[in-house]
């Protein structure tokens, strides 16, 4: 067991964990942040995506030793009290949410993208969304939600 310290949604936390333990397990089991979902365990589905040091990472395979000193943002860190983040609002407005299981991962993917590039092209959005599986929507509304998110984020 090692002590690993990082910042999560703005709060400094220290956890005791094996260096090879995965971030998703620590988030869900130790920190009770269950917004990141487990869909596959082999980087295929993207439901577990969180933001680590500004980059979207699939937490199911992300080893804890790489989390030392990191700044991590999960879907729970996005909204401000009762106020939704523009990306979250955009997803609702576009009808991009059905079962919701892929939603937090996709929103975090877009969050990382929009923080580094507030005006991504449609190709950039396609490349980012292509890392995620959704079995409900057929992606049409998800793409609309992403485009709307770009609009909302820049209006803010």
């Amino acid at each position: 067991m090692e002590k690993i310290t990082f910042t999560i949604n703005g709060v400094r936390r220290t956890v005791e964990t094996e260096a090879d333990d995965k971030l998703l397990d620590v988030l869900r089991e130790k920190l009770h942040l269950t917004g990141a979902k487990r869909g596959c365990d082999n980087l295929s589905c993207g439901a577990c995506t969180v933001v680590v040091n500004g980059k979207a990472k699939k937490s199911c395979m992300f080893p804890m030793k790489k989390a030392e000193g990191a700044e991590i943002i999960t879907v729970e860190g996005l909204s401000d009290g009762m106020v939704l983040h523009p990306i979250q609002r955009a997803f609702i407005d576009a009808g991009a949410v059905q079962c919701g299981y892929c939603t937090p991962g996709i929103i975090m993917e877009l969050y990382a993208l929009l923080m580094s590039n507030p005006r991504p092209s449609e190709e950039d959005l396609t490349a980012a969304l292509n890392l995620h599986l959704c079995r409900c929507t057929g992606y049409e509304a998800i793409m609309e939600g992403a485009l709307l998110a770009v609009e909302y984020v820049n209006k803010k």
Partner: protein
Amino acid sequence: MEHMKYIGKDIERPDAVGKVTGKAVYLDDIALPGMLHTAILRPEYAHARIVSIDTSQAETMEGVVRVVTGQDAPGISYGDNIKDQIPMAVDKVRHIGEPLAAVIAETLPQARTALKQIKVEYEPLPVYVDALKAMEKDAVLIHQDNGAYWHLPSIKPVPGTNIACEYTLKKGDFEDGMRQAEVTIEDEFNYPLGSCAALEPHGTIAWFREDRQIEIWSTTICPFIIREEMAHAYERPISEVRVHVVDLGGCFGYKSDVTIEQTIAYIASFVPGHPVKFMSSRREDFTSTLLGHGIRTRMKIGAKRDGTLTALHARVYHTTGAYADTGVNVIMAATHNCGGPYEFSHCNLQGYSVYTNTPPVGAFRGYGHQESHLAVEILMDRLARKLNMDPFELREKNYLGPGKITTLGEKLWKSNGDIKAAVKKVKTAVFDHPLPGEDDQYYYGRGFAGLMKSPKGAPFSTKGVYLKFNHDGSISVNMGGAEVGQGLRTVVKQVTAEALKVPPDKIKVYNDIDTQYCPYEWQTIGSMFTTQGGRAIVRAADKAIAMMKKTAAQILRVDEDYLSYDGEKLFLKSDPGVFVPVPEIVRGYMYENGITIGEVVQSTADARLPRYSSPDENGQGSMGVTYTFGAQACEIRIEKKSGKIIVDHFASCFDVGRVINPKIIRGVVAGGVVMGIGAALYEELLFREDGTIKNPRYNKYHIPRLSEAPGRQTIDFVETPSEIGPFGARGIGEHPLVGVAPSIVNAVYDAIGVEFSDIPLTPDRILDAMRKKN
């Protein structure tokens, strides 16, 4: 059409905020005090006698509370249609994902580590991964007791064979129909085994409480069936079994019927007092829950030269898997829907549900419709070519519609919908502009399929509702229908709003299902929730309004029929100035002196399909009841170099009777089409001859990503009101999948002139076909 105030509008989903904030609770997010974890051992062979299981080493491992095998309490069997299922293998294993033993431990890693120490000795048996092989004369029996299991009277097992159910449908005089035929066309079609592969895998928590209550949380859409099955297995009153369903991360069929729940309950029964949690890994979700399809259809169509269809012959073979309880109704639907959206006066149809050494098949969005439509819609195109007729003209001549009779013998009425109107819209969208000619890179093609979908329910299937007026005029609605993403809670909200003439924001829809508090619902299947659940809401609303009128009549001292209700007040029709506001009477009306009269306004109702029946001796009966017709078409490109099929445009139109929420219905159709594209182009669970599975993972079982979705989708609706659903509405959940594969296969012929009879159409198969052709 009647003017609707809240129906037909895009109101926001009541579950959306919870889902975008990550706060919606799914099964795996639940942790209970004292909860233990379990991991399950799966066999090394798909069919083998169990010689011995040695758990001694595993029992001594760190954190291990108990190791369980099927030998610990043999004798529990279960099933809704055939009681051929068991919670854990006893004397033999019948498929590669079957539960063989389980470790219960303090943590999941401990359970998984200990699992590796269990030693099993097997005596392998012959393996069958295809129905046709398992039906051969000298095939070894997968179930020695086939025929002896309890089953519904409509299920016909053939003892001494691997046939779990034989279903025969006869309509008219088939021989006569064939005599009238001037042209026949036939082929064998295959819709291979696949998985619904929802993003959320199956999971269950089971808890045998010290107070003798059995409490269960599960990823299921049939909590009431689970409640009854548990009560039966553990000899408790049904009321002592409590089943919870929280948010579900997709279903698409395979979370209906009892799947893993009996296994987890069996395991938990050895550690009473402790909740025991199990979450399938993605691999287990593929290998150890329910699969879909696995259906071969040998179909022959007879027609006159003018295109009039005269006879239909089909033999349908279902690789149903090691247990048939969840698959036997699929074969019935796959057989009686062989006629697709066409009228055949004379039919001879037979379906076989066959035991095989593959995981059991259950519902898959479409339930026997997409497999039968693959056959009939490809054959209709081929028949048109043989008759040298325009395929639209051939179809037009034979569509079901008012006055026509389905294979099941049900007469259709105008209120069953208008397929011709749907076809017209799709045809305009896809066929009314020139197709690009072949170029250096691509071949181009377009294809069409008509479709008909009816639910495969059960005669007693019903959906209940509890409606409660609160004294500020807000309304609570409680039902037992499972929200799997399809937007069911939004439908509840909008139908309630319309029925009670109250704005949707005053209506609170239930978040989760708890069999202790929710009204009864059989299970949320067959695209029946809007139809039945919506009708139940209308009935409960009418009852509530009647209750309010009764109280208001006393207060206003008039007869009830002189009163009217507008959502805000009860008023005298002849003098609307005489009224009483709704909030003043919903808890009973209190006079100034405190004396209170009138009932609290809360009502209950349920609704089932009218006159839904079991099959008669000809396999016919009132088994469709509510039909939805539709049409789908696509424009594709085939890349010459790679053989890859690209869907540029996909068009769908359904006669849904009434659109309740335009945004949600578009999302359901768009998603269903992409799922159908997955089946047509990529998805197949690949079995080796020994019954092991080659690709039980997301990166090997290819489900479509955004870049594989159609370039654009045209999605349209016809609204011919139904007499059954609320405000004329019909179901739509499964329908978007039904015509996708045949329309793509037909488009491939249009592009390269090759006839395919099975899917998926992978690039290798296309390249191979092009090579052979040239």
